[in-house]
């Protein structure tokens, strides 16, 4: 059997007996207590304005970032963005209550549907698990609340990030994931999104909108 043969060859190469308690201990310890490398200086200082750093990095990656103080402003900001980019006032989102509670009907002619994305949805709206300041990255967890296809099929992807959920590093995001979700129950897909879809495969020139979204709007909200 290939499995036994490959593992046997690996053990032979390493001169490692199959049941070495010391080696097993080292491995299970590292998995149980993942080491953390020093955080990048740009987000390490305690006074760092995480939201400002997050926004700056994300904008460098050609996303649009809007800040609102209150969640009730979100539908209007999204409608304004869609109009400004000549997109129809139509979007799809999952059953995340923090999105369902937003008052989209208050904006005239805004058509909002729920469920996973279909190929003709012009825009998808997701709620981020956390924002990550070091590179302007958003972590999204798949599931009925935020179906994964919302971030890839529509031409426009919109992500809401609560300001108090912006953490300094990737490791901080994973720590929250272990704490709140549990490493044993990872979602099917964890997406780290840091900009719109792009490619440089034709003559090395960057073109935005390869296969995924042509534009990415991030809305940072201070009060939920």
């Amino acid at each position, binding site marked *: 059997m*290939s499995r036994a043969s*490959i*593992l046997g*060859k*690996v053990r*032979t*190469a*390493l001169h490692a007996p199959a049941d070495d308690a010391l080696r*097993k201990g*080292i*491995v299970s310890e*590292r*998995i149980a207590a*993942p*080491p*953390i*490398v*020093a955080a*990048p200086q*740009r987000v390490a200082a305690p006074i760092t304005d995480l939201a400002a750093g997050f926004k700056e*990095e994300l904008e*460098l*990656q050609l996303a649009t970032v809007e800040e609102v103080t209150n969640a009730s402003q979100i539908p209007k900001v999204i409608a304004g963005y869609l109009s400004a980019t000549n997109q129809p006032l139509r979007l799809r989102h*999952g059953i995340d209550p923090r999105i369902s509670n937003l008052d989209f009907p208050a904006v005239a002619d805004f058509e909002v549907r729920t*469920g*996973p994305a279909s*190929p003709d949805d012009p825009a998808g709206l997701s709620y981020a698990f956390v924002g990550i300041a070091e*590179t*302007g990255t958003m972590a999204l967890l*798949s599931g*009925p609340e935020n179906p*994964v*296809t919302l*971030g890839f099929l529509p031409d426009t992807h919109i992500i809401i990030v609560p300001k108090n959920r912006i953490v300094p590093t*990737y*490791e901080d995001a994973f720590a929250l*994931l272990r704490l709140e979700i549990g*490493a044993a129950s*990872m979602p*099917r*897909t*964890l*997406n*780290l*999104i*840091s*900009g719109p*879809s*792009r*490619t*440089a*495969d*034709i*003559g090395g*020139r960057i*073109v935005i909108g*390869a*296969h*995924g*979204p042509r534009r990415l709007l991030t809305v940072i909200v201070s009060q939920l």
Partner: protein
Amino acid sequence: MQPTSHDFKTNARAALSDRQLQEALSGLPGGLVAQRAAARARLPEFDDLRDYGRDLRNHTLDHLDLYLEAYESKVIATGGHVHWAETAEDACVAILRICKAADAKLITKGKSMVSEEIGLNAKLQAADLDVVETDLGEYILQIRNETPSHIIAPAIHLIQEQVEDDFRRQHQHLPKDRPLDQPAELVDEARKILREKFITANVGITGANFLVAETGSSIIVTNEGNGDLTQSLAKVHIVIAAIDKVVPTLNDAAALLRLLARSATGQEITSYTTFSTGPRRADDPDGPQAYHVILLDNGRSELLGSEFREVLRCIRCGACMNHCPVYNAVGGHAYGWVYPGPIGAALNPGLIGVKEAGSLANASTFCGRCEAVCPMRIPLPKLMRRWREIEFEHGETPFLTRFALRSWAALARWPAAYHLISRMTVGTLKLAAGRRGAFTWIPFASGWTSGRDLPAPQGRTFQQLWAERQKTAALLTPTNKEAA
């Protein structure tokens, strides 16, 4: 794929006179090289992270069997399947079996160098399956019937006009007079065509940048989002990955991700980094219904036990080839197999044999830039030098080279004769070169002289100059002491 590495010299000669290829390659130094330097400058701890990354990869390789077992048990616990494949053939058979069971007709594929290594597309097509590459560069290569010439920028050897010609030839159902002279128009056309494929495909195949033992996740890093559409819309997601891709924890993946994009494209991070764990959950409205991982060995366990173990630290960023003067001159196809550039020269002989790929170690000026930029600090020149020695020991070195090396070695054992002969040679060459001070033609070295002149020796040997220098230094020393 069928390797042509043994023909590197012929391949390289053709590449040097290929005008379009030379135009395409001319953008490398100002593009990827400059962008990496800028990204490194923005992250002061970049070089410390490289030490950390090297140590973390060494630790993982030292415990590879255990991390693979831990990873496997997590994949199974989250509802996925793991298939171990010793050889390329085993891997293709396993993938074909999964495709048949899923009654697959159309298969979409994200970018995967390992799938190139095992020759997957040919095997799928031979079984009457329709397979479509969805990474834009790979799609272009598929319609051109070519292989990638770079591990992260597969179509880097092409200029825009070639892609336009390919699209006009391939997409004949579209209006002939459509404008296609802007990169955005070409991207848009491919986007529309591949959209249909994503939606109708039954099976999606991706590679993996990392496998995480802590969670049983596979990670892909992309900018286009094609890998996400490939795995999220198809009924079945198959991951093909080599055994050296495993890392212990999510945090370890984070440390390596900080190095990967910066070393590769000079981005802080790619647009999409995706962690896939098992099939869709019971209440998920989308995502694949089945998740399979093929764990490929194909020679890596042997490399692990050899003096070339360090090559397995590679995270496939491509920085070594971007910075290589030889790669920059001839491009990736000349290397004649899946992995080009310095990493190919250090890795390929271990995977396809010294007879086929041993000579790639000679495709180097040993300038050392590859090691200087490698995020995993792989001593590429040292490994290439060792392959040269092995190639010589195996008698794969060409007759003329062996003859020259043997003659030199024999002579070098007699220092007096060596010095005498080299003094005479150097003197003769100076005289022969005359006032020009250079040669336009040298027997057996036309490869050098056809492109440029060879400067002639100045008349004295290194040994002579060294002896004179020592004498002068001895004379000067007392004066120096006084001055002090």
